[in-house]
């Protein structure tokens, strides 16, 4: 559980730096296959993970670098993974959409929309059966709201009061599909009503609001009160992926949301406490951390082709 604003700010800045640098590296051809940025969604990732204990678990999405960093994955092996290197957190076998680090409780990002919901619910079932006291936070986007896996698994979790928090990051777009074009409900959190669990909406351009809403849900889950659906209202400031034609929204709309940038909002509050100079120092440190991660990735060896068929089976 993270209480101080400075750490929340620092983690959001790390995510922003990571995904911004990634854009440069994709365009320069260092990272293959494209990638999805979480710019504008940092407060959702950091706010949720700030309400968890270190040994709690999460599942993540194709837009998952923020979740990984917020849960404590080291950016060095993350960047090396994007570079397809042996030093990557998945030894270069997974790439951007499959970042996993079981040592910090990240059970994996996912390339299939909504597929993490079953894995997270099963992990919560395992905690319940083993009475571990651990909670699972399951991230998915509003694009997963209409996947069948949501109905099946959330129903089961509610039925058995499993220790899980479902976090729907509503970034307003599933590729070009605007949320209102995809779901009949005006308020996505109302979906929880039909599934028998509490549903809350939170302003996810405000990291403290996300953390506080999640804290309540985590307490309920840990105490045997069952799951909660949190709809974290944020905005995908960049495209679906690097190279998105972005023909489905206006500059004005994006500008409106840029003015609510979660990092800028947090910076304003934090500056009043620690001053601008201290903030500039944090920014410089996080930028340097990403420089170091890129250097680490570049120095890490490429996997040997002769090992390509190894590790299909445990």
């Amino acid at each position, binding site marked *: 559980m993270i209480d101080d604003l400075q750490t929340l700010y620092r983690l959001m800045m790390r995510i922003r730096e990571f995904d911004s640098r990634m854009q440069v590296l994709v365009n320069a051809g260092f990272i293959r296959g494209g990638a999805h940025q979480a710019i504008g969604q940092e407060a959702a990732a950091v706010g949720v993970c700030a309400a968890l204990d270190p040994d709690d678990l999460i599942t993540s999405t194709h837009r998952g670098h923020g979740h990984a960093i917020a849960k404590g994955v080291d950016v060095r092996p993350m960047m090396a993974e994007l570079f397809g290197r042996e030093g990557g957190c998945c030894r270069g076998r997974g790439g951007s959409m499959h970042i996993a680090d079981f040592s910090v409780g990240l059970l*994996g990002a996912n390339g299939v929309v909504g597929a993490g919901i*079953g894995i997270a619910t099963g992990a919560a079932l395992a905690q319940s059966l083993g009475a571990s006291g651990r909670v699972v936070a399951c991230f998915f986007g509003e694009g997963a709201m209409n996947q069948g896996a949501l109905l*099946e698994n959330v129903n089961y979790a509610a039925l058995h009061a499993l220790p899980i928090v479902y976090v729907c990051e509503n970034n307003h777009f599933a590729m070009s599909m605007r949320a209102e074009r995809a779901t009949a409900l005006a308020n996505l959190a109302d979906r929880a009503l039909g599934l028998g669990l509490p549903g809350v909406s939170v302003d996810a351009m405000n990291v403290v609001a996300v953390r506080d809403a999640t804290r309540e849900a985590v307490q309920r889950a840990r105490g045997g009160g069952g799951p909660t659906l949190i709809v974290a209202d944020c905005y995908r400031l960049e495209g679906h992926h690097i190279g998105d034609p972005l023909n489905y929204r206006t500059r004005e709309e994006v500008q409106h949301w840029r003015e609510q940038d979660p990092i800028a909002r947090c910076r304003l509050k934090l500056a009043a406490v620690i001053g601008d100079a201290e903030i500039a120092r944090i920014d410089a440190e996080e930028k340097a951390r990403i420089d170091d991660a890129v250097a680490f990735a570049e120095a890490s060896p490429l996997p040997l082709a002769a090992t390509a068929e190894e590790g*299909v089976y445990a």
Partner: protein
Amino acid sequence: MIGQTAPVGARTATYAAALNEALREEMQRDPRVFCIGEDIAVWGGGGVYGVTKGLVEEFGVGRVRDTPISEEAIVGMSVGAAAAGLRPVAEIMYSDFLALAMDPLVNQAAKMHYMFGGQASVPMVVRSNSGAPGGKAAQHSQSLEAWFMHVPGLKVVTPATPFDAKGLLKSSIRDPNPVIFLEHKRLYQTKGEVPEIEYLVPLGRADIKRIGRDVTIVSNQTMVLKALEAADDLSLSGIEAEIVDVRTLKPVDMETILESVRKTSRLIVAHEANVFAGWGAEIVARVAEVGFELLDAPMMRVGAKDSPIPYSEPLEMAILPDKDALVAAARAVVAY
């Protein structure tokens, strides 16, 4: 173990009871093992075919979990529970319904160990049943094992006898990988020797169910029993068929198959699934690649015709392979 008849005095059990014993023993042995599926706890005392009978009384509702009709969640949760350290044994009531759970099997369970660089393992078993029990028509009768063989990361097991069913299920539960364990509806009430002492049957080893010199018939599930009957018929006219029960389709035991073909120089592969792109195609292709010189006749495949399974009995019988088809194929390759 050769043949179906048990030695005098040996204990016999049905295929369903043998599977039930495997589950019970593994649940007693390892507290991480639990069962999850539809109608596995309450219905008829445990499972539509009785495989989970009595388990809820012994292990409680926490470890024998009746679920709503939610196949994707049954398998998806099993993946998550396995990744988190448990050993789920999921039951999908009919293998046809595995179609509803393909993402968690194919994109999640099969990939996690490799895709995450070896840091995760998914030790889970998905039990289901193949085959046409008679009159259950197109959506409750399919044999879909080839679908799963085509996915790297999955193992596929298809036992034919009570002995193998028990030993293979125990090995599957102890395996650190996702295993698709396909039983057969027509085999549940068949009886055979099942020793009272504990034993395992390793994955990846075929079993010669009858020794012969003239033709090799590689088969699985009900087709093993039909091949044994066909072999009795063939024997009357002096043709001795060797019956290889493949048992595990992935990993597959090519060594035993090739060894048998080396002796007989003739190969038939028989399965209840339709012939087109069935697992027999893979066996025949592999023998053609590495054992072509061993053959004295073209290889043949015996299986269902390329059609949905019909309801009406004469139609169903026209689609499914039978003993006569095996006898005819064996005579043809021997006469070649």
